[in-house]
C-alpha cells in the first residue's frame, strides 16, 4: 500500500486542523439540499490560493469526502437528500428514523461510508501499478481518443437530452480554445478583450456554474425545509453491528461503487441505485426494503463512498475527470501547478499517495465529526434558502476576486452563473460543458501531436485508439438503441 508511506505527512497538526475545518464545511454543504461536493470544492478553491499544494489537497479532498456524508444525514432525518447521490439512502433511512432508529441508521451510514471509502481508496492504490503499465502504452492518438471518449460518455449519459448534452460539450470545447493558441502563441478568439488572453478562467466558470446557480435555486425557497428534529448524537452500537452482520452486502456494494466510479460520468447516482437494486434483488426478504431495512442504507452508503476511489483513477492517471466534482478538483489542483495525468503515476507518484492518504484520514475525521456533531448541524436546514442565497453569492464573488484581484474574474463568474441557470432550465448539460472545457486543451494538443508523429493513420491503426474510437461510436449510438428497445418492450 503506497499511501501508508504518506500517512505521517498527512498527520501533521496544521494539516489536521485544516482537515477538521474542511470536514465541518463539507458536512454543512452536504446537509444543504441539492448542494453537493461540486459546490463544496468550488467554494473552497479560492480559499486554498494562499496555501501550498499539499494543504490545498487536504482542504479540497476533505470537504468533498465529507459532503456526501452530510447528505446522508438529511436523507435519514428529514427525507431530503443533500445531494442526488444520497437519494437512495432516504428509501430506508427515513422509515428507520420514523421508527425511532435514526441513531442506528446514521451510525450504520457513517460506518459503511468510512469503510466503503477506505476499500475504494485501497483498490485505487492497488490499481496504480497496473494503470502505470497501461498508461505507458498510451501515445498521442490514444490520449486524443480517450479525451473524446470521456466527453462523449458524459455528454450522452447526463440525464436529459442527449442532443443538447453533445451540444454543451461542443460549446465547452470552443470555450477552451479561447486564449493563446498552442502552435503560434498568438491570441485567439479574444475579440480584443485583454482579459481573455489567458483563456476562459476555469475557476470563474466553475464557481458561476455551481455556486451562483445553486444560490439562485435557493433564493426561491421562502420556507425552511425542516421542522423540529430531535435525535441523540453519538454512536449506536446496533448500527456498527449491522454493517458487520451484512458484510457481504457491504463488500458487493463497494465493488459496484468502485467500478461504476471508474467510468467517467457513470458513478454517483448510478452506483448507489445499482447497489440498492442489487441489495433488494439478492435479499431473502425483499419486502422489507423501503420500509426501514438497514441493508438499504448500508448498500447505498458504501457504494457512494467506494466510488470516490473509482473516480480518482481516471482523473489522476489520465487527467480525464470522472465527474463534475473531479473536473472541479482538477481545476483546483491545476491552480497549484499540479496537472493530473500520466505524471501523477510516475514523477509525482508521492503526491498521488499523499492524496490517497488524505482521503483515507479525512474519512475517519468525517465519521467522528459526523457522529458527534452531524445531527446538530442539521439545524442549517431550518434556515430558509432565500436567506442563504445572498451569503453564497458573496462567497462566490469573494472567491473569484480573491484569487487574482481581477474584476474580469468577478464579471465572468456572474456571467457564467446566469448562463448556468439558463442551461439548467433549458436542459443543456453544465457538466458536459465543464468537462469539455477541462479537456479542450488536451484534445487540441494531442490532435496536433498525433498528426505530426503518426499522421491520420495513427487514429485508426493503433489498437488502443481504435478500441476507444469504437467505444465513442457505441456510446453515441447507445441511447437511441436503448430508447428503441424500451419502446419495443410490451
Amino acid at each position, binding site marked *: 500500500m503506497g499511501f501508508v508511506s504518506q500517512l505521517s505527512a498527512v498527520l501533521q497538526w496544521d494539516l489536521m486542523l485544516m482537515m477538521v475545518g474542511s470536514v465541518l464545511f463539507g458536512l454543512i454543504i452536504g446537509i444543504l439540499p441539492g448542494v453537493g461536493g461540486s459546490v463544496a470544492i468550488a467554494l473552497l478553491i479560492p480559499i486554498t490560493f494562499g496555501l501550498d499544494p499539499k494543504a490545498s489537497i487536504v482542504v479540497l479532498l476533505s470537504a468533498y469526502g465529507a459532503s456526501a456524508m452530510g447528505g446522508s444525514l438529511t436523507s435519514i432525518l428529514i427525507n431530503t437528500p443533500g445531494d442526488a447521490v444520497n437519494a437512495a439512502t432516504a428509501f430506508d433511512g427515513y422509515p428507520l428514523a420514523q421508527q425511532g432508529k435514526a441513531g442506528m441508521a446514521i451510525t450504520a451510514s457513517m460506518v459503511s461510508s468510512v469503510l466503503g471509502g477506505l476499500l475504494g481508496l485501497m483498490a485505487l492504490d492497488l490499481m496504480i501499478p497496473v494503470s502505470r503499465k497501461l498508461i505507458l502504452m498510451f501515445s498521442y492518438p490514444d490520449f486524443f481518443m480517450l479525451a473524446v471518449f470521456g466527453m462523449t460518455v458524459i455528454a450522452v449519459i447526463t440525464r436529459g437530452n442527449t442532443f443538447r448534452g453533445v451540444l454543451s460539450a461542443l460549446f465547452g470545447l470552443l470555450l477552451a480554445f479561447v486564449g493563446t493558441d498552442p502552435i503560434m502563441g498568438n491570441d485567439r478568439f479574444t475579440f480584443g478583450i485583454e482579459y481573455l488572453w489567458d483563456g476562459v478562467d476555469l475557476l470563474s466558470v466553475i464557481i458561476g456554474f455551481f455556486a451562483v446557480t445553486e444560490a439562485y435555486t435557493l433564493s426561491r425557497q421562502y420556507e425552511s425545509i425542516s421542522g423540529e428534529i430531535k435525535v441523540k448524537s453519538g454512536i449506536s452500537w446496533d448500527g456498527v453491528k449491522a454493517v458487520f452482520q451484512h458484510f457481504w452486502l457491504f463488500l458487493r456494494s463497494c465493488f459496484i461503487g468502485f467500478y461504476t466510479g471508474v467510468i467517467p460520468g457513470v458513478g454517483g447516482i448510478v452506483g448507489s441505485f445499482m447497489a440498492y437494486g442489487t441489495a433488494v434483488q439478492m435479499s431473502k426478504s425483499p419486502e422489507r426494503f423501503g420500509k426501514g431495512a438497514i441493508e438499504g442504507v448500508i448498500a447505498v452508503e458504501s457504494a457512494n463512498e467506494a466510488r470516490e476511489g473509482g473516480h480518482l483513477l481516471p482523473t489522476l492517471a489520465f487527467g480525464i475527470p470522472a465527474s*463534475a466534482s473531479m473536473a472541479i478538483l482538477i481545476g483546483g489542483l491545476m491552480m497549484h501547478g499540479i496537472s493530473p495525468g500520466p505524471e501523477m503515476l510516475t514523477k509525482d507518484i508521492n503526491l498521488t499517495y499523499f492524496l490517497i492518504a488524505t482521503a483515507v484520514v479525512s474519512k475517519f475525521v468525517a465519521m467522528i465529526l459526523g457522529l458527534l456533531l452531524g445531527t446538530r448541524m442539521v439545524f442549517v436546514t431550518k434556515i430558509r434558502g432565500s436567506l442563504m442565497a445572498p451569503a453564497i453569492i458573496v462567497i462566490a464573488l*469573494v472567491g473569484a476576486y480573491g484569487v487574482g484581484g481581477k474584476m474580469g474574474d468577478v464579471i465572468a463568474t456572474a456571467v457564467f452563473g446566469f448562463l448556468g441557470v439558463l442551461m439548467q432550465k433549458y436542459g443543456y448539460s453544465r457538466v458536459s460543458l465543464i468537462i469539455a472545457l477541462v479537456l479542450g486543451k488536451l484534445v487540441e494538443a494531442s490532435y496536433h501531436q498525433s498528426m505530426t508523429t503518426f499522421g491520420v493513420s495513427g487514429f485508426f491503426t493503433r489498437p488502443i485508439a481504435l478500441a476507444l474510437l469504437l467505444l465513442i461510436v457505441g456510446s453515441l449510438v447507445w441511447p437511441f438503441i436503448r430508447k428503441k428497445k424500451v419502446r419495443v418492450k410490451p
Partner: protein
Amino acid sequence: MIQINEKSIFSTLIFLFACSILFATIDMHSDVALVPRIVGTGLLLFSGVQMLMDLFPAVRKRLSFLESKLTAEETFGGEGVVEEEAETGKSPFERYLFFGWVAAFVALIFFIGMIWAIAIAIFVYLKWINKDSWTLALIYSLGIALFIYLVFVVGFGFYYFL
C-alpha cells in the same frame, strides 16, 4: 409561425457564438484554426438545429426524435441536467431581479471595493428583494461584511478588498 421567447433567444445566442468563432478563424493560420474549425462546425450544426427547433414549432414536431428526453429509468443517470419545468409569469421576473442584483453587486465591487459592496448589496437584497425586517437586514449584512473582512483582509492579507 415563429416562436420568440427566452429559450429560442438562448439557442440563437449559442448559434451566433459558433458563427463568430468560425468567422474569426478565416484570417488564422490553417494549423491554428483546424481544430476550432472542426469543433465550431459541429457546434454550428447542432446549435443551428436546436435554434430552428426552438424558433419554429413545425421543425420541432418534425425533429421530435431529437427533442425526446431520456427519462431517469432509461438513462445511466448522472449529475447535471434538470429537465424543463413550466414557469409562471413571476419566475422570469424573479430570475432577472436576482441577476440584476448580482450585476449591481459586481458594479459596487468595482466602484467602492469588496467589503462595502457586500454590506450594501446584502442589505438591499434582504430589505427590498427578500422583504425581511430592518433588524435582520442590518445585522446579517454587517455580520457577513465583518466576517469577510476578518478572514480575507486581516487573515489572508487581501488588501485590494478594501
